[in-house]
């Protein structure tokens, strides 16, 4: 390769570096008194967490069972990722701001430092008057191991919508928690899900009663602050018959040199004619450009279209984390149910992504749609892993999969690993895949029109992601577009 060519590639790579670790805006730390238990994992720790939350016996038993199973399981090694062995005895499994010691408080009493932390992150925990024309968003803010506040609860309650921290749900709606917890992701589903089931400390809970269209966007904002602390939260969203909810999730963490583990579980249940849209903008600290530090994001997300005509749609914008292992999936159990997965996964520097989805067709005339856009830059590795599975009874099942990879520079890698299994002859499955590079000619064209190389890359990447960005709720699209490094797409036309 000529020197000139090498320098072009290098420039491009540098520009893209700016989307990654070097310009991580959310890397600050909050100095706050915390209540933190010693490192290590044992039955006693599981009991401690459960006792801290004053949980009923059935839940403690559930956790202990998960812990027993986890001990006999092996960490999965099939993913296209490579990281040093995690010492599970060297992690802290519970850290909470001291001010939260006496349990959740009303919003007025939340520690001002926490409010400030969230406002620096662009998240308002105040229910101030919202400007005309701007939609309200209810937020549940999870800081390390606990939920520190949930907004608009009373207003939502008027419609019968329950939106609160997981801990509160266990106290106030034990029947719902008991009925649905682990019903989508069984506690021994996989290594990380089992670990989460044993030690999860908090998370968000949401129930939309029959026929109710949730009047505002719901969101959870995850923040890992403490060093050497894992975050194990659990989200459970239930849309009863004919209900609708759009749920958003955002995540950030301080820049730290050591890796931190985030092993969450999200379960969605959609009953007859219900619809859940679940969107994620994942911006965990990705580590520095040499791969030092960053979050291990090992997450199990699954939705169950439990009854007829249920719809679940996952949209994710994954830009952060050192290592991502994540496959938001849909079980299409109800006849005519629909599952969707729209994903943008950006990897840069030394980041590693192994992400995708599973669409499990069990009911008749079920359909699923997968659009995945992987962008790799730097020396990163980006794998799409997708499974489409059609059960013998799933007559008339349909799937459409489109899986596009964009490479920036020549030291990164993209992999596509589709698994397709159809046990019913009437299934119609389509799969399209492309791999492309940002060409020097495209970059030059943009520069000739006045864009600096960084803007040029942002514009081209934005165009590449368009099909997915369109599926994000307006409120999140802005953040996502900025994250992808974009200013204008969608503002006209």
């Amino acid at each position, binding site marked *: 390769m*000529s020197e*000139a*060519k090498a*320098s*072009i590639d290098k420039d491009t790579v540098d520009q893209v570096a700016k989307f990654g670790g070097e310009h991580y805006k959310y890397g600050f730390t909050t100095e706050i008194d915390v209540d933190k238990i010693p490192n290590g994992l044992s039955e006693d720790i599981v009991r401690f967490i459960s006792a801290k939350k004053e949980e009923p016996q059935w839940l403690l038993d559930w956790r202990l069972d998960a812990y027993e199973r986890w001990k006999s399981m092996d960490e999965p090694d099939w993913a296209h990722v490579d990281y040093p062995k995690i010492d599970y005895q060297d992690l802290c499994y519970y850290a909470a701001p001291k001010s939260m010691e006496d349990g959740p408080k009303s919003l007025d009493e939340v520690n001002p430092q926490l409010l400030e932390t969230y406002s620096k992150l662009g998240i308002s925990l105040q229910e101030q008057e919202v400007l005309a024309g701007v939609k309200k968003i209810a937020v549940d803010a999870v800081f390390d191991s606990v939920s520190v506040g949930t907004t608009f609860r009373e207003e939502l309650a008027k419609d019968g919508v329950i939106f609160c921290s997981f801990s509160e749900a266990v106290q106030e709606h034990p029947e719902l928690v008991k009925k649905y917890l682990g019903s989508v992701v069984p506690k021994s589903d996989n290594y990380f899900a089992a670990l989460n089931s044993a030690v999860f400390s908090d998370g968000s809970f949401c129930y939309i009663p029959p026929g109710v269209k949730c009047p505002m966007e719901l969101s959870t904002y995850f923040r890992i602050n403490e060093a050497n602390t894992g975050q194990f939260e659990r989200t459970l969203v239930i849309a009863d018959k004919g209900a609708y909810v759009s749920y958003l999730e955002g995540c950030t963490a301080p820049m730290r040199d050591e890796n931190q583990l985030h092993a969450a579980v999200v379960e969605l249940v959609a009953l007859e004619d219900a619809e859940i849209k679940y969107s994620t903008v994942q911006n965990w600290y990705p580590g520095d450009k040499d791969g030092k530090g960053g979050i291990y994001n090992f997450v199990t997300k699954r939705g169950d279209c439990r009854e007829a005509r249920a719809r679940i749609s996952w949209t994710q914008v994954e830009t952060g984390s050192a290592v991502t292992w994540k496959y938001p999936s849909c079980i299409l159990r109800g006849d005519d149910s629909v599952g969707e997965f729209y994903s943008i996964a950006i990897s840069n520097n030394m980041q590693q992504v192994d992400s995708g989805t599973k669409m499990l067709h069990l009911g008749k005339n079920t359909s699923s749609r997968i659009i995945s856009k992987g962008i790799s830059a730097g020396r990163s590795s980006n794998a799409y892993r997708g499974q489409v599975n059609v059960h013998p009874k799933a007559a008339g099942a349909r799937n459409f999969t489109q899986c596009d990879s964009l490479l920036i520079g020549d030291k990164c890698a993209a992999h596509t690993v589709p698994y397709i299994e159809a046990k019913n002859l009437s299934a119609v499955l389509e799969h399209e895949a492309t791999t492309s590079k940002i*060409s*020097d*000619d*495209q970059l*030059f*064209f*943009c*520069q*000739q*029109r*006045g*864009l*600096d*190389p960084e*803007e040029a890359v942002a*514009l*081209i990447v*934005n*165009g*590449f*992601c*368009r*099909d997915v960005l369109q599926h994000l709720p307006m409120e999140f699209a802005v953040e996502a577009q900025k994250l992808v490094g974009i*200013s*204008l*797409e*969608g*503002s*006209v*036309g």
Partner: protein
Amino acid sequence: MSALLNIDNLQAGIDGTPILNGLSLSIQPGEVHAIMGPNGSGKSTLSYVLSGKDGYEVSGGDMMFEGQSLADMAPEERAIAGLFLAFQYPLEIPGVTNMTFLKTSLNAILRGRGEDEMDAASFLRLAREKSRALGMNDEMLKRQLNVGFSGGEKKRNEILQMAMLEPKLAILDETDSGLDIDALKTVAEGLNALRAPDRGMLVITHYQRLLDFIKPDVVHVMAAGRIVKSGGPELALELEKSGYAEYVGETVNA
């Protein structure tokens, strides 16, 4: 008063291969110059070197734009300074609408000049007006940049970008090839509308046809990386008749 563009003894190449071998050319504000010349003589190379495409090495000579040397400027700085290149082969950018591209481009240039960006409403009005003048319907603005455009539509789209950006110097690299007769007229009208006392154009073409519509002040013949003859509009007519034989032989081993 300094020339809009003054190229003096320019030598440039790519990957160690010399392509421009001592090219000189001067354009005054308000002038339209045409460059004609056989395939491979270096016309597109000249346009790339002027606009700063990576990979082209300038090994000698000067390129001055309004008295400022272009050599050390990044491509986008040249664009902001008012240099525009209509590409011989316009690029596609999937997923980015024509409208978004135009707006991003215009605002980047305004920003680069320290001016305010254009608000959405004024931009939309301007884009519609300019595209209609070029016989393009509003649907074209919503389509992805050049994706699935016919050859002629792509060329027309280049002129739309030029009309929006109102550059001081426009280099048009074979903008006429691939245009049907009516499109050629529309595009030429668009170009004529942009003729102004403070603006210059360098029109690269193989055909006299375009020059019937846009009357050039000067016609240059380029061969083997140099301007080998310059004259008035009649030179183009001559070339049409007798071809380049006379010039090609003369410059071998130049």
